[in-house]
């Protein structure tokens, strides 16, 4: 018997039946899309097109159209890459880590968080690929024997480890997401009336029958995938941090980087989930499933991970002094007081100071405020990567080489463009895919559903 304490808040509000859940979640797919959807997808796909245009211009002309220079040879490109990879952490954390921790509230948010993860990782991967200049030679970063001489990838380079780490992460996340979708596609297949849709969702559901044996296997596969995905949540951003931390550049080489990058990634990922879900629950009328309690839980994750990041910032700052190494100390003094001081303080304010307001229950359960904070955190985490990358590079060991970085319109265009592509993909997902794990949610209805909880309590007395 499964029992849940009366003091736990319900995760499904109102009186819902299994049939209601199916209806509520399949309805947006069956019905015509609201006008807002058309407006949003038009805007985001126009931005996406502009971004693709900038990418094509970059490929046609060369990486010189970016603002990089001899001293600052990594800037917005890698900042954007790390930012997107970081955002791509929430989905797998929710689906894998929270599954292992048996957090039932994950069921309302895992599907869209996983979709977001996949789109974010695609955006991330774009940057190193286009940074190569000759993208048609992108396959060179695979360890393939080649016909051009004894040219091999450098296995000692963390950049290559990144190729492995991110492609593994992407594959596992995609499989995890898709496996979860199969029973839900089958539900849609059985529900829709148009033969065209029936056929498409029938294909997507791989002929799922929903018998007991299939469900047993489904649960086993989910657990195994969660077991594989959990170390991946850690490894991906750890390897990304190795890109910097294995070097001997002050501000980059510090041992706390791997866990602190992971924490920062979860932090930014959850902020993006909030940004997306707060809009989606409203537009798609999912307030009974994505409740204030869900939003509060995610805000708690944000304050915990944000504070871990804060402890790491202060540790770095302290140890740079404690080390007694002149270059280390200078790197951090320069961050806080040098020409890029504004980016350092933007990072500190957005990531460490402002999330502390979530200690107040009133604020962490306030939807408009949460939405505002989610944007603040996303901005802060972009600045974090900018601070790490650009301020550490722009004043190197040789003062005669000191330089500033100025982004060009192509830098800006590609970054904004990826946001457009990301939102376009997400909107398509929200229109045609079940945005909640409807079959999984049914499994907690009678334990965590509001009316069932009231009944149980009534019964108890």
């Amino acid at each position: 018997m499964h029992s849940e304490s009366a003091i736990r808040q319900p995760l499904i509000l109102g009186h819902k039946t299994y049939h209601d859940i199916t209806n509520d979640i399949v309805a947006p797919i069956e019905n015509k899309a609201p006008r807002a959807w058309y407006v949003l997808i038009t805007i985001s796909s126009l931005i996406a097109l502009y971004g693709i245009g900038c990418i094509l211009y970059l490929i046609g002309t060369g990486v010189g159209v970016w603002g990089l220079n001899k001293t600052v040879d990594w800037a917005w490109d890698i900042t954007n890459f790390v930012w997107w990879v970081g955002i791509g952490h929430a989905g797998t954390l929710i689906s894998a880590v929270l599954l292992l921790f048996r957090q039932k509230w994950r069921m309302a948010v895992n599907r869209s968080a996983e979709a977001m993860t996949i789109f974010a990782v695609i955006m991330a991967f774009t940057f190193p690929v286009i940074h190569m200049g000759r993208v048609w030679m992108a396959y060179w970063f695979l360890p393939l024997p080649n016909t051009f001489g004894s040219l091999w990838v450098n296995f000692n380079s963390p950049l290559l480890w990144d190729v492995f780490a991110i492609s593994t992460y992407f594959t596992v996340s995609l499989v995890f997401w898709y496996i979860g979708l199969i029973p839900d596609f089958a539900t849609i297949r059985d529900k829709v009336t148009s033969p065209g849709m029936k056929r498409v969702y029938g294909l997507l559901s791989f002929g799922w029958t929903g018998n007991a044996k299939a469900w047993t296997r489904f649960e086993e596969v989910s657990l195994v995938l969660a077991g594989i995905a959990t170390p991946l949540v850690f490894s991906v951003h750890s390897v990304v941090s190795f890109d910097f931390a294995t070097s001997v550049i002050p501000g980059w080489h510090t041992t706390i980087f791997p866990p602190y990058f992971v924490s920062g990634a979860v932090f930014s990922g959850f902020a993006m989930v909030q940004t997306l879900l707060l809009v989606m629950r409203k537009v798609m009328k999912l307030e009974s499933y994505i409740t204030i309690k869900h939003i509060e839980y995610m805000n708690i994750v944000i304050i915990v991970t944000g504070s871990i990041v804060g402890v790491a910032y202060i540790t770095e700052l302290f140890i740079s002094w404690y080390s007694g190494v002149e270059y280390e100390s200078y790197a951090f003094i320069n961050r806080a007081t040098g020409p890029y001081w504004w980016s350092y303080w933007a990072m500190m304010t957005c990531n460490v100071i402002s999330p502390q307001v979530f200690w107040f229950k009133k604020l962490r359960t306030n939807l408009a405020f949460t939405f505002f904070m989610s944007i603040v955190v996303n901005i802060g985490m972009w600045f974090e990567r900018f601070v790490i990358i650009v301020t550490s590079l722009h004043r190197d060991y040789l003062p005669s080489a000191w330089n500033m970085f100025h982004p060009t319109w192509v830098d800006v265009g590609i970054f904004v463009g990826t946001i457009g592509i990301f939102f376009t993909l997400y909107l398509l997902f929200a229109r045609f895919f079940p945005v909640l794990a409807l079959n999984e949610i049914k499994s907690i209805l009678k334990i965590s559903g509001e009316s069932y909880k009231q009944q149980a309590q009534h019964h108890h007395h």
Partner: protein
Amino acid sequence: MNFTFSKRARTISIALMAIGAAATVIGILGDHTDHHQRTWANLFVNGFFFFGIALGTLFFYALQNATETAWSVMVKRVYEGILGFLPIGAGVVVLCLAAGSLGLHHIWHWMDPRVTDPTNAEHYDALIAGKSAFLNLPFFWVRTIAYMATFILFARWFRKQSLALDELSGEALVKRHLLMYRRGALFLVLFAVFSSILAWDWLMSIDAHWFSTLFGWYVFSGMWVSAMVTAVVLVLYLRRKGYMPQVNNSHVHDMGKWVFAISFLWSYLWFSQFMLIWYANIPEEVTWFQSRIDHHPGLLWTMFFINFAVPMVLLMSRDAKRNPRFLIGVGAVIIVGHWLDVLQIVMPGALGHHFHGVGLLEVGMFLLFLGLLIHTVLTTLTKAPLTPVQHPYLEEAVHHSI
């Protein structure tokens, strides 16, 4: 049902202490280092390691409250039992630090006033002098007292409230539970700051030139694993003796999972710190690992193998985590592994070339403390019912099934 400290268990714990004490005395007679530095260093290694078990438990206890976890309510008295050792461990750590401050030994080289005196050409160390805004005795003691007072006060408060819950019901019960939830979160905030700084203060500053930003988290994860192992072994012992009949295999499985998971966390943090320092190979950083690899490779790699490979391979399967005998066996190995970890953190810096690995003194002191831990924890367990009678999550915890 209350736990009765059986005669047999009492004899075993006292015998452990006696054997340990005898070996320690013989070991001390053979300790020819200046100021009996080896004896002091051993006292500190064990004081810190066993204090770490209690502190890791306190952290986990606060975490369970702050995350509103139900299953662990079933075994919370066992965690409270381990907390009984916290003041003793703290006392030993403070004793070692005080002796160092008084110049009775030189484990913490920076405490010697000659080191920071620029007029003393022979002993002056510019690097350490540069850190003296942080590494100076008054500030150091303010910090140490702040951590210890916080830990002990919170541990006592949690225990008091936990016992008080048993007397309450209805609204009052929920209210008191929510107070523990909030204090749990408050403790985690303080712990997040203190756990790193105490590792710099007490362990990293033994090698005062060396620094690593990850060091605090690495030390913390070691305490956490040791706490998880101790708790599960205790629960298995109590179940075997017929206590806590409501603790089922699912509870044990979950406790086993924590040992498994935190062993991975520890391995991840250890490897991150090691790999980055090894890869960059910067002279001022690499010394710490270099001295351990050059002079104590057996200790270093055995320790890493035990703490990483053993739990990974042996505790991966579901059956392993539900097999009491097996879990106790693996737990015992992991505890030794983490003791070796603390040993290799402290000794090379504290004793230099006088450190020759594990000898009679090291083993003796370990057994002495192990006996003391067992005796203290089992005594604490007799003082309250092993299973809580009232808790908002009790029902959920009883029906725990995974």
